[in-house]
């Protein structure tokens, strides 16, 4: 996929949404820190009802992009339009209709669960009567109905995240922005957050999220953009991206014998083969020949699975470590 085609895919709404203006439009965004350009001409548009995921390794420019979109930092180039307002010029007006779940919890530890929502609603100048009516619904949504008077300090990590999500909804936003919403949570807590987000999508809310969890992007997003080194390297619906970039079947071969097997047998049988440490990743349209051959090699352990976003991600961004 060439650059023009990626930009086309990033800006094109799903078929049913073409008539309405986008909730967020980012056009040729650039941001530089010193000598390093961390966002290099990023363009995308998010339409009502979509869940758009920004996927990328650490340092890819995800959080910087979000901070630009919120008007917290000034871009060095490009334009941003958030809920119809130009950003950063009218960032404050835009943020009135946006909810944010930050990467790190920043609930107010001096207040109770309910007070956190009340105080945060005050930042939006929401009338007290509206908040009093809305807070029980938000607590219900967050599964914290019985915890209204509880101090933040006694909540579990999952509860804090759910409350942070509820807090981001206090102004009934047109767009919900989540920066790595489930990082650091245990599987149970992650599933609860995902359930919540799916509920919101079913209600027609629009979501922009960044993540480096492939399963998260796969489960939630209607479209996802892979970004690396500040540029977009792919953008489409998860299934379409997989179909375009990655062979449908994967066989992972482990153990000391894996390397030898890979060189002698694997390379010729797989459509594509990658070695990482003592694991050989074999990609194929049909894994049957690979499996048949592996069955004759005693002592080689292997796993046969369908291709997932992680394969896509690794293919597009490489295997080397990022920090």
């Amino acid at each position, binding site marked *: 996929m060439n650059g023009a085609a990626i930009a086309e895919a990033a800006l094109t709404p799903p078929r049913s949404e073409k008539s309405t203006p986008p909730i967020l439009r980012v056009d040729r965004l650039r941001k530089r820190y010193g000598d390093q350009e961390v966002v290099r001409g990023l363009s995308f548009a998010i339409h009502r009802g979509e869940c758009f995921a920004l996927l990328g390794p650490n340092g890819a420019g995800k959080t910087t992009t979000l901070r630009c979109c919120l008007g*917290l930092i000034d871009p060095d180039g490009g334009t941003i339009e958030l809920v119809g307002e130009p950003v950063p010029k009218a960032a404050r007006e835009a*943020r009135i209709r946006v909810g944010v779940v*930050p990467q790190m919890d920043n609930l107010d530890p*001096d*207040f109770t669960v309910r007070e956190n929502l009340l105080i945060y609603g*005050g*930042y939006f100048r929401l009338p007290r009567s509206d908040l009093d009516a809305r807070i029980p619904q938000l607590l219900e949504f967050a599964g914290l109905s019985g915890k209204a008077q509880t101090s933040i300090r006694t909540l579990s990590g999952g509860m804090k995240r759910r409350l942070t999500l509820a807090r981001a909804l206090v*102004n009934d936003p047109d767009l919900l922005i989540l920066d790595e919403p489930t990082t650091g949570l245990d599987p149970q807590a992650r599933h609860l957050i995902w359930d919540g987000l799916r509920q919101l999508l079913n209600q027609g809310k629009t979501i922009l999220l960044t993540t480096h969890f492939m399963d998260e992007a796969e489960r939630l997003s209607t479209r996802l953009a892979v970004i690396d080194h500040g540029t977009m390297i792919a953008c489409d619906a998860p299934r379409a991206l997989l179909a375009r970039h990655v062979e449908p079947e994967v066989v992972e071969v482990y153990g000391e014998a894996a390397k030898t097997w890979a060189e002698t047998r694997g390379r010729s049988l797989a459509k594509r083969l990658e070695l990482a440490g003592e694991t050989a990743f074999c990609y194929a349209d049909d894994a049957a020949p690979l499996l048949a051959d592996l069955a004759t090699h005693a002592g080689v352990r292997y796993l046969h699975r369908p291709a997932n976003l992680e394969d896509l991600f690794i293919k597009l961004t490489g295997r080397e470590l990022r920090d």
Partner: protein
Amino acid sequence: MNTASIVRLPRFSTRFVPVWRRNLLVWRKLAIASVLGNIADPLLYMLALGYGIGAMVGKVDGMSYVVFIGTGMVCQSAMFTSSFEGMYSAFSRMHVQRTWEAIINAPIALDDVVLAEWVWCATKAVMSTAAILIVIEALGFGHTWLALWVLPLGFLVGLCFGAFGLVMNSLAPGYDFFTYFFTLVLTPMLLFSGVYFPVNQMPAWLAHVASVLPLKHAIDLARPLMLDRVPDDIGVHVAVIAAYALVAYYAALMLTRRRLLK
């Protein structure tokens, strides 16, 4: 962050009020401990130093030593309270709890947050000033309606030292950093502004140094007011403190933008 967006003039909006109110609501939860500290501390100092040293020195500047030190303490307390708030408390909210980060994701700009913190520092200074006024009144060291003017003065002193504190906050890697401010600013301020002894009995060069200290100007206003006299040179004193306050506030704002908006 480009330079222009760091140095541009402050943008004021009434959006700062809910942030100020947030601090007030937290304070209310801990109010008893806070007020107790505000009253107990100066009370102990006034009793111990006022009677202890007072017994040796007799009258100072035409007043009993306990009254002399009480009037100085009003300003000292405003200075300490606002400096603490601008440093330790603001640092907790900005860095440790990330409360500011949560706030600027709402339709509130960082400028509003810094303004709210600044005004909050001054608000706390007024609270502690009021506490000492009550102590002085309760101990029966004179009663004058003119003394109520030290409340707005406490606010001004709070703006000055609150802004100093916020400058430190914007530069601090951790709480330990604030020790510098005690050693380099607060202690000299305390010793050479005339809280515990009159400035005019120091050598001339030291008195000159003292004359540029904001706390000295605050005390020059507070002391006559507490003794039911209208101070001399009100305009000069107010202008000096206000100038420190405004310059420090602008510096704090720029440094905070540099720290957080990147």
